[in-house]
């Protein structure tokens, strides 16, 4: 078995990153010009990495699937970004942010990476402010903070309900600056089809221009994947329509290990599903839980009446309501971490207390907050979210409580990376949601933006130099190499195969079926029988897909059906790996809840003796079972405890 080396630097945790930077190899300015880097993806991680690497003097090529880098799905993050600035003087520190993140992740993240994340968090805020990101401010002109789930301090910086947008536009403007300077070349509407490996190192990518269908080869000394998460394997998720797992899946098939594929975050505050034609789910920011109180009726009879429309929620008296989060978790109340809040909602709805037409919804009520603070305060804090809710549901949340239900939101799992964010393929790096690091089994709110920007602005520009330092003698690669030839051929064959099936089911119909299998069996609650069933069902569905899918059009034109088919084909493999990983992990931790492993009062029961490791899966060939490698987790600076938000 391969031994995974996380390459954690020596020394006390607070000095590891400083020591690393002090002793790492660097590339001198003259040599930087001779080195090419490919960055796939222009979200927070990709755009910030490409801009920063371009500034350093490397030749960067950056690719995005949308028509502009600004449309990457980081843009949709609403709530905020964490940093250990301690501006509110409420006792925050780098250690506390580190501690909260490891604890929030249910002790399944690598200490050294998380500590570094907390350490650079402050620089991120400085950087973004310098770029002109309009963070919310107090009347004194200084930055404002708010609190988020899983923390007892206010450390979240925000720009109304559009923090992700503003941070991404900051990174996009930095990227635009470098494109104008000529250090970064931008390719839009371009989707990664394959990774090219030469002599065991990542040396290029095969891209498809989605306008012309042209298959293009690009070579480089190193490749960064910043292609986001794979939540769309569930079909319905809060991810954008084009978000997909294909780039990291191609990397996996070329030898990069996949870390913790089963760790999926189900976000508690989303707008409930309303019809089977639905294409995606909409998130309502977690920040709403600062002021909103979550409840369901105390009696199933009342819930029934509300479901049938015989009673309005506002008519239900206070004593007939069950504020179940406040009841179960008095210390954190409505601000428990996401996994806990989601499971609690599912538990209530499964037990017959759910509301809404489908019974799959709970209330998020602002009546108390409006009474306490006044409508104008609530409007200033959440106005745009309330408006968004009203546009979708045709209900006024100032007057009647919002209805919410958990939905797939984020994948903590991803390509396995070491401390340098390098995958098991030398020269291939993964950043942001695409890698597995930092969040363990559950991500805290406002930490995704932090991680994306940390990786892109402050980690990769250092660690990649450490790798590239011994590449300065390597001449630019020619894309005529047989490895490129082969990869392009495989891509063309795959496209041809999809176009020639000519069956009678649409791509979406397969995606929907896969999503349902995943949601029912690999969703919020998982068990052995369900997971085994899911594996069998996915294999069946995959076989059926390749026999009966219908993909219209040709390759040499704009063909959204073909794009979807290529992605769904990969999801049909990725879903199975998720189920396998969930099956192996016989414990409950964070977003991974195995029904066989819970405390008597229904809380997640971790098993640190047997499962205190990162699962890193190795691809062994089509239709062969992948091999599991384990990276043991060592906790030196945090005492591992059962998470307790009571």
């Amino acid at each position, binding site marked *: 078995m391969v031994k995974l080396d996380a390459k954690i630097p020596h020394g006390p945790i607070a000095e590891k990153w400083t020591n690393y930077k002090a002793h790492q190899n660097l590339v001198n300015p003259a040599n930087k010009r001779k080195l090419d880097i490919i960055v796939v993806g222009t979200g927070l991680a990709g755009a910030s990495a490409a*801009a*920063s690497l371009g*500034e350093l003097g490397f030749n960067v090529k950056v690719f995005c699937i949308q*028509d*502009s880098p*600004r449309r990457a*799905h980081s*843009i*949709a993050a609403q709530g905020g970004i964490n940093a250990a600035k301690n*501006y509110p003087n409420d006792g925050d520190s780098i250690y506390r942010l580190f501690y909260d993140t490891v604890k929030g992740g249910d002790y399944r993240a690598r200490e050294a990476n998380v500590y570094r994340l907390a350490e650079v968090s402050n*620089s991120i805020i*400085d*950087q*973004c*402010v*310098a*770029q*002109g990101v*309009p*963070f*919310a*401010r107090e*009347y*004194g*002109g*200084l*930055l404002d903070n708010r609190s988020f789930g899983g923390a007892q301090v206010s450390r979240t910086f925000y*720009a*109304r309900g*559009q923090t*992700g947008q*503003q941070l991404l*536009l900051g990174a996009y*403007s*930095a990227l*635009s*600056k470098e494109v*104008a300077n000529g250090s970064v070349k931008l390719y*839009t509407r371009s989707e990664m089809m394959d990774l090219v490996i030469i002599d065991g190192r990542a040396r290029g990518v095969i891209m498809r221009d989605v*306008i012309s269908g042209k298959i293009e080869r690009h070579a480089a000394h190193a490749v960064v994947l910043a292609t986001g998460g794979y939540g769309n394997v569930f079909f319905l998720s*809060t991810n954008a*329509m*084009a978000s997909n797992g294909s780039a990291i899946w191609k990397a996996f098939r070329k030898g990069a290990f996949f870390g913790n594929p089963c760790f999926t975050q189900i976000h508690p505050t989303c707008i409930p599903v309303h019809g089977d*034609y*639905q*294409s*995606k789910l909409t*998130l309502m920011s977690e920040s709403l839980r600062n002021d909103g109180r979550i409840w369901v009726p105390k009696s199933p009879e009342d819930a029934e009446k509300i479901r049938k429309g015989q009673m309005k929620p506002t008519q239900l008296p206070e004593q007939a309501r069950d504020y179940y989060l406040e009841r179960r978790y008095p210390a954190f109340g409505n601000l428990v971490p996401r996994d806990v809040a989601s499971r609690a909602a599912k538990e209530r709805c499964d037990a017959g207390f759910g509301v809404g037409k489908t019974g799959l919804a709970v209330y998020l009520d602002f009546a108390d907050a409006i009474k306490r603070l006044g409508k104008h305060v609530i409007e200033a804090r959440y106005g745009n979210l309330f*408006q*968004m809710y009203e*546009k*979708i549901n*045709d209900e006024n949340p100032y007057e009647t409580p919002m209805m919410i239900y958990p939905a797939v939101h984020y994948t903590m799992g991803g390509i396995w990376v070491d401390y340098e964010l390098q995958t098991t393929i030398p020269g291939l790096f993964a950043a942001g949601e695409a890698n597995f690091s930092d969040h363990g089994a559950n991500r805290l709110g406002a930490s995704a933006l932090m991680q994306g920007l940390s990786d892109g*602005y*402050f980690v990769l520009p250092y660690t990649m130099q450490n790798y590239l330092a011994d590449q300065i003698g390597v001449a630019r690669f020619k894309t005529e190499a047989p490895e490129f030839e082969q990869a392009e051929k495989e891509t063309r064959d795959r496209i041809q195969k999809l176009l020639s099936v000519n069956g*009678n089911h649409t791509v*979406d119909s397969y995606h929907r079926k896969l999503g349902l299998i995943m949601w029912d069996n690999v969703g919020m609650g998982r068990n052995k029988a369900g997971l085994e069933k899911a594996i069998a069902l996915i294999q069946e569905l995959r076989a059926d897909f390749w026999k009966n899918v*219908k993909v*219209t059009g040709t390759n040499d034109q704009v063909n959204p*059906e073909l794009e979807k088919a290529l992605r769904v084909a990969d999801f049909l493999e990725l879903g199975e790996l998720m189920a396998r990983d969930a099956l192996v992990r016989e414990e409950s931790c964070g977003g991974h809840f195995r029904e066989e492993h819970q405390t008597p009062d229904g809380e997640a029961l971790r098993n640190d003796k047997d499962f205190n490791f990162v699962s890193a899966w190795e691809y062994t060939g089509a239709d062969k079972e992948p091999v599991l490698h384990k990276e043991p987790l060592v906790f030196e600076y945090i005492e591992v405890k059962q998470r307790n938000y009571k």
Partner: protein
Amino acid sequence: MDLTLKIWRQASATAKGKFVNYKVQDISAEASFLEMLDLLNESLVQKGEEPVAFDHDCREGICGACSLYINGRPHGPDRGITTCQMHMRNFKHGETIVIEPWRAKPFPVIKDLMVDRSAFDEIMQAGGYVSVRTGGVPDANAIPISKRNADLAMDAAACIGCGACVAACKNASAMLFVSAKVSQFALLPQGKLEANERVRKMVARMDELGFGNCTNTYACEAECPKEISAANIARMNREFLVAKITAPKE
């Protein structure tokens, strides 16, 4: 509800396009406009026909990918939202809906309802940034900014780059888009240092790309899904005037 859709179909950038009528049936008022188009496309695929191509991604009104000129209005009849946020309850049973791509010289049609908006990226590259490098910046709280200016900057920065302003303007002018970025930075001390250069370069690029001129019709403000104010255009005019007057002799 049942609807007739009159949709612009154009096979490629160079092909000649035309309107084609489609009937859709049993559309739920709860469905979003794009979900209605998904249903149309699924039925087209099942019939072996080419689905209608349109840009979309986040489907929650923030990425700015979706466009569509619906019944004479960018992003359709409802105010302050994008096409993807618009629900079918805005339409009546039996109605005919005319769906067109954004029309502007700098936004050529790629296919059907998809247009190329890379002109916006080019304007951004001309100066839509503060020239700071990664690292070495002062502490975030070292520069206090009045809440009022921070709020105004945020109002302008809310732009999603969808191009509805250009689509709505009878002159296909991009002034609201450009002025939103110019304003955001002009209002903040970080952006002040390069303000003159920025406005000159961005306006020059905008003009070169072939956008029309602003005639202060304010259609852009009326149709902006983020309700960005045309006051930003005045601010840009002011910035431009100052930049021109105070520019050193070349």
